[in-house]
């Protein structure tokens, strides 16, 4: 919000050092966030917070400066000569919706000549970013900028029966506003009407037909107070954010219409001639008295943790326009000035004192005590462990938007209709992801386009699936994505990853977390047929992994290379995590026996392993795969499987005699069951 410093200086004496003025404003809450030169003067660009509509005008800022600098405040000149007949003889105002319009005040000027406003006024408007129109409209805008109260001027000759009715619009009514747009109205909209039809959208914009033109001779000047919520709804419904609606939404001074109308009347008569009618119409069914708020000095010091002398507190509040009596108990009944619509509680008064007193004096202290819950919640602690295991195993962490592209989501997602943003910025970020892999694959595609030939990525983040009942859910997941597209051999580079490398990472992760899992053949998007593996802990599905379907990759923009993805549900992992449990170390050496068998290559290793583990072999500690080979030297359709069995007893050294029967036992099962032969 832009105001020239020279205009503020008309109401309070400012030091020559503009930097010091800007700093004083900024450190008391009215931030000066920019400075520019317009029409030969410095204009400050203020960032006024929404709670301070009283600072959204020149006089309000001057009032702040007068408190900060200790200089007297000079109010605008509101003296106006009333040369016309009594206002009641010229017009009437009926407020049919007092809930939405607590006050409607009007003055009337007759016999004026509308022209151009003088250069000094035009300069002020331009400095504040407002285009001059004609002398009357310029005065209303000038007074808005100067005193903060929005005003509106009607051409009286165009008002049916020359009177005003403030009411809710009727269904089917329309109005063409000053911007030339016809707008359909309904009972939710508060309008200013004449005897027949709406003539203004109350507090937002006037109507075109009754606006002031060069031909206007008599005018009705409105200064009103409207319900902020009603103004905000209307302004948003029509997408009309105006200088008036901006202030009404934030709340205007209920006493504001008096001085603002007088000021505007004075300026109009000065610039356009005409006769100001005697008095003002003022419809105000239930005027609110001044608010009183209790301030306890002890509470102020306790909340701030800082000493502020009682006399200092009361003098700050008085200088800001608050009313209070000295009190021996240091408990003050503070009367709030009408222009401070934001102050209604003790905490608000404490803020007023401290923002003027200055926050620089606030001491720095550390509170004692710890949170009884403390630490990281288990699921986040799990995430941190996973993050460390993953980067240490060669994967780089990625972070993707939670919003994604519907086509990508369709190719990678859980299958149900994803949650859709009702106001997305772009279609590419219009639904919530239900899979982490889709956005990761899209990143991969962008990196591929930049020349990357391999990548090992992971993400720990939330997905947002819907439940069977359609309800919105949110869960934490881990995804790993390994990719290679004929990467050129480099010094020391490991071989390109495949499905087993991915499975190995997942196995190792789960082992480190103390989670026992099994891997079962599965199917489903986004994995290629026949290469999807479900990761299970008993009946609990921990996640899936597999080679990604080239069609899904293509949807992500990846046209070449092989990618392998895993996605795990942290909600399922977290309760299964377990501490390591120490197993006693045997003092006796272990004995290892290796076997090489030829077997039909369609027989899965898992089946062989299952058979080995079920053998009634005492002291068998582990059965480990050594090699799996097909090709030269192995007949068509067969493969050679080499494995080793490790035996160890807890109480003695095993002898040759102990392990001698093993070979027969092994082949006694693998032979008949799988047709395996010893190599």
């Amino acid at each position: 919000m832009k105001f020239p410093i020279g205009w503020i200086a008309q109401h309070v004496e400012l030091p020559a050092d503009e930097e010091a003025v800007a700093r004083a404003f900024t450190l008391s809450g009215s931030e000066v966030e920019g400075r520019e030169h317009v029409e030969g003067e410095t204009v400050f660009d203020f960032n006024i917070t929404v709670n301070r509509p009283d600072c959204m005008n020149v006089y309000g800022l001057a009032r702040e400066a007068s408190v900060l600098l200790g200089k007297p405040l000079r109010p605008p000149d509101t003296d106006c000569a009333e040369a016309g007949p009594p206002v009641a003889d010229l017009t009437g105002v009926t407020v049919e919706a007092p809930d939405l319009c607590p006050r409607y005040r009007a003055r009337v000027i007759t016999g004026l000549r509308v022209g151009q406003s003088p250069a000094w006024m035009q300069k002020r408007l331009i400095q504040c970013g407002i285009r001059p129109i004609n002398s009357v409209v310029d005065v209303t805008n000038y007074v808005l900028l100067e005193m903060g109260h929005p005003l509106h001027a009607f051409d009286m000759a165009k008002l049916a029966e020359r009177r005003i009715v403030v009411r809710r619009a009727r269904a089917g009514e329309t109005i063409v506003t000053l911007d030339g747009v016809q707008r359909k109205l309904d009972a939710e909209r508060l309008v200013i009407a004449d005897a027949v039809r709406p003539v203004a959208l109350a507090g937002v914009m006037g109507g075109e037909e009754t606006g002031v033109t060069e031909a206007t001779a008599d005018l009705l000047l409105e200064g009103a107070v409207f319900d902020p919520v009603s103004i905000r709804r209307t302004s948003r419904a029509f997408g009309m954010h105006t200088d008036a609606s901006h202030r009404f939404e934030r709340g205007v001074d209920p006493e504001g219409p008096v001085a603002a109308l007088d000021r505007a009347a004075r300026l109009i008569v000065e610039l356009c001639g005409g006769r100001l009618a005697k008095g003002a119409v003022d419809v105000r069914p239930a005027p609110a008295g001044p608010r009183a708020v209790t301030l306890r000095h002890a509470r102020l010091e306790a909340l701030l943790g800082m000493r502020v002398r009682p006399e200092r507190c009361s003098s700050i509040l008085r200088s800001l326009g608050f009313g209070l009596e000295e009190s021996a108990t240091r408990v003050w009944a503070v009367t709030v000035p009408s222009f401070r619509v934001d102050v209604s509680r003790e905490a608000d008064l404490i803020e007023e004192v401290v923002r003027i007193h200055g926050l620089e004096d606030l001491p720095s202290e550390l509170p004692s005590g710890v949170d009884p819950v403390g630490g990281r919640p288990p699921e986040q602690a799990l995430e941190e462990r996973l993050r460390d295991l993953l980067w240490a195993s060669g994967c780089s962490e990625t972070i993707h938007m939670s919003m994604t592209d519907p086509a990508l989501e369709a190719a990678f997602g859980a299958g149900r209709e994803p949650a859709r943003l009702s106001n997305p910025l772009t279609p590419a970020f219009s639904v919530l992801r239900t899979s982490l892999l889709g956005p990761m694959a899209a990143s991969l595609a962008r990196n591929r386009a930049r020349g990357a030939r391999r990548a090992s990525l992971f993400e720990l983040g939330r997905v947002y699936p819907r439940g069977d009942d359609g309800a919105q859910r949110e869960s934490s997941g881990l995804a790993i994505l390994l990719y290679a597209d004929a990467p050129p051999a480099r010094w020391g580079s490991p071989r390109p990853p495949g499905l087993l490398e991915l499975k190995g990472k997942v196995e190792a992760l789960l082992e480190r977390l103390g989670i026992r899992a099994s891997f079962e053949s599965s199917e489903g998007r986004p994995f290629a047929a026949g290469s999807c593996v479900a990761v299970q802990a008993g009946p609990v599905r921990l996640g899936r992994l597999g080679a990604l379907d080239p069609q899904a990759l293509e949807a992500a923009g990846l046209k070449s290379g092989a990618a392998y993805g895993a996605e795990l549900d942290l909600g399922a992992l977290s309760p299964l995590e377990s501490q390591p449990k120490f197993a006693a170390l045997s003092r006796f050496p272990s004995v290892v026996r290796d076997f090489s068998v030829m077997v039909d290559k369609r027989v899965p290793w898992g089946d062989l392993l299952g058979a080995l583990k079920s053998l009634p072999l005492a002291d068998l500690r582990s059965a480990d795969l050594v090699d799996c080979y097909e090709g030269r030297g192995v007949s068509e359709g067969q493969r050679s499987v080499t494995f080793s069995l490790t035996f160890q007893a807890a109480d003695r050294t095993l002898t040759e005699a102990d392990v001698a029967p093993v070979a027969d036992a092994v082949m006694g099962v693998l032979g008949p069951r799988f047709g395996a032969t010893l190599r």
Partner: protein
Amino acid sequence: MHLERIEQIRRDFSRDIEEASTESALLEVKGKYVGKKRGVLQELMAALKALPPEERRAFGQSVNALKEEMEAGVEAALGRTRAARNAPPPVDVTLPGIRPELGTIHPISRVRREIEEIFLSMGYAVASGPEVEDAYHNFEALNTPADHPSRDIQDTFYLEGDLLLRTQTSPVQIRTMEARKPPIKIIAPGRVFRRDDDVSHSPMFFQVEGLVVDEGITMAHLKGTLAHFYAKLFQKDVVVRFRPSYFPFTEPSAETDLSCVLCDGAGCPVCKRTGWLEVGGCGMVDPAVFGFVGIDPERYTGFAFGLGIDRMAMLKYGIDHIRHFCDNDLRFLEQF
């Protein structure tokens, strides 16, 4: 006479051991001199018996000394040849090392962890809440009613019903105070979403919310906490300045300005030559918020603060653009 013979044997042994270059040659030398059967030493022992008793003692001592000397000589030589055989092959040490595959942690995660560690060391708990929030927790209970202009501060992404993508981590304050009573000392890091997208904003970014509620909590505690935190995070002396501001859920409210960590307040492009960095909002918990969660505002007071993890990461690592964080360019990720 015999002593001369001993010296002769010693010289021969030295020469032979010098010449033996393999393990088997050394074993041969060992057999020749100290072998149990036909070793040179055996020969001397035989001579010993022929000596008069008065000479035997001195001669015997010399023979024994020679024997120990030769045995040790053989062992040492054997050790040297074994070491030579097991010696690593020569390597061009200027070749690059063969590296294990190590990944990287995203800079957002790195900084978030650092932030968490600092607050954990101060006795905080880490809390979290949903990213898809309802309007009540994201706005209403934070004293931001519908149809109030304070809602305009944050442009919001809406979903169906009254769901939305949280615009701040502040709803975690509400959820924590709903779930338990003071003392509360939490930080809540996480993703937040705003519907703006320009050069300096991303529609998704990362915040940390802090909340402390207990008896006797003051605004001075807030200032001290932030000063301590920023000094730890940037590992240097910093000045924290509070500037009055407005947030619906705190009163009094302040913006936190930090003396610029890059130029130490002298003025640089990052702080726009002001010497100050605006790092986040804070304030004393508004009594209205306590009202929503049923905490007695006369008994308890509290402070809350927020800060941007993205911003901290940019300052710490000198990252020039917020866009990098969600772009996942490998050339970016691999730098951390």
